[in-house]
């Protein structure tokens, strides 16, 4: 087996530098690569283009990079939970590209899978389709969307092994598997790193071939955005 383990989040992020494009997994604060985001803040790399479904909240997730003015351009589908984001966007400090969520997921998968482009119905007749080719198939209109490839893809998994195989948990899976292999280098931080052979080969969500570096994460906060409960019966 090919060993993908690195010993620290510092080592995992080696090579990330100013002006790069990063894909970052997670939906809201669920399944985000917390260790890597902290390290990006510490590194102070700037002028980043960050592609992620959301932009975090003011004081967590990608919001930390926004507060720190490290992001030049944000590509996302929904950014409604972040005041600092809205301020930077409306003032023009931050470039923003909004993409339908399913299109974003598939543009990542297209890069992973070597498809340059695909037709999707999402966004036809809207701003999203402006400047893009549109086309009818079987009487319905579609928009041509292209693969989105990054310098680094940074994901968070539940379990991983030294060969880079990944298993995600619950809805913390979300964009993480689709972003693996959609960049020159894919970095996975995991809650539990085990030796190759300990994961059931039938239950692996992302085979190690899509991952270049895997690192044992620590101190996961896993902040909940909208704690919603019902009373005990």
């Amino acid at each position, binding site marked *: 087996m090919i060993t993908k383990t690195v010993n620290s989040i510092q080592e995992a992020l080696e090579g990330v530098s100013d002006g790069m494009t990063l894909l970052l997994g997670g*939906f*809201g*604060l*669920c*399944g985000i690569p917390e260790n890597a985001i902290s390290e990006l803040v510490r590194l102070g790399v700037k002028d980043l283009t960050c592609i992620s*479904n959301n932009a975090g909240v003011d004081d967590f997730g990608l919001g930390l990079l926004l507060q720190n003015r490290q992001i030049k351009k944000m590509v*996302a*589908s*929904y*950014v*409604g*939970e972040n005041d600092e984001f*809205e301020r930077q*966007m*409306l003032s023009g400090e931050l470039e*923003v590209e*909004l993409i*339908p*969520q*399913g*299109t*974003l*997921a*598939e543009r*990542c*998968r297209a890069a992973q899978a070597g498809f340059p482009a695909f037709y*999707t*119905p*999402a*966004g*036809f*007749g*809207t*701003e*999203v389709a402006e400047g893009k080719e549109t086309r009818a198939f079987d009487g319905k209109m579609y928009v041509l969307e292209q693969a989105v490839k990054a310098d680094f893809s940074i994901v968070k998994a*539940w379990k991983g092994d030294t060969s880079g195989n990944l298993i*995600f*948990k*619950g*809805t*913390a*899976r*979300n*964009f*993480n*598997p*689709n972003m693996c292999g959609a960049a020159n280098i894919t970095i996975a931080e995991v809650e539990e790193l085990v030796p190759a052979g300990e994961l059931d080969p039938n239950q692996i*969500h992302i085979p190690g071939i899509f991952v270049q570096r895997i690192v044992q994460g620590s101190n996961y906060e*896993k*902040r*909940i*955005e*909208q*704690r*919603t*409960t*019902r*009373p*005990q*019966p």
Partner: protein
Amino acid sequence: MLDKFGIAKRIAKEVKNGYYVNLGIGIPTLVANFVRTDIEVEFQSENGILGMGPFPFEGEEDADLINAGKQTITALPGASYFDSATSFSMIRGQHVDLTILGAMEVSEDGDIANWKIPGRMVKGMGGAMDLVASADNIIVAMMHTNKAGASKLLKHCSLPLTGVRCVKKIVTNLAVLDVTKDGFKLLERAPNVSIEQIKAATDGRLVIEGEIPEMI
């Protein structure tokens, strides 16, 4: 006139046995509470769960288990988790039978706007553009007028669109309407709401044929 719970309750009647349903944020989320319990229905949330259950009991929240509104949820027996690309395969591939979502504006052609107010608010479309471009069966849940009292059922949408010619049915605090080639066809009035009130609150073309019953 209905409140948001009344709107949700009325929409719940549209949920049929065997339906997979995607519920948007806000009023649509409330629909789950009113669906008949003697039919088989599964709720999909586009962040990656099918077979979504009710909110967890206090103390049993799991940060790794949320819905698309970022609320903590539970999973019912028979549920499954999946990645975002697979989730939108369900939506785009028309495997989801019914989509219920909110709107800022709907046009008489079935266009919908719900993601952006230029210069003032841009939250993003999230999964809404994929949902409305794909679903055969889309119900909009919203107030008939906005906070300023202006109609949200228009001849043409004034805000940037989310999708074109896609909305099939609208349930508001005042009425139930189908989107037809002739315009908004009034089907039911909310309790104690007159046809005149609905006319006054509707900017787009309103089609009224025969007796319009009050919702039950």
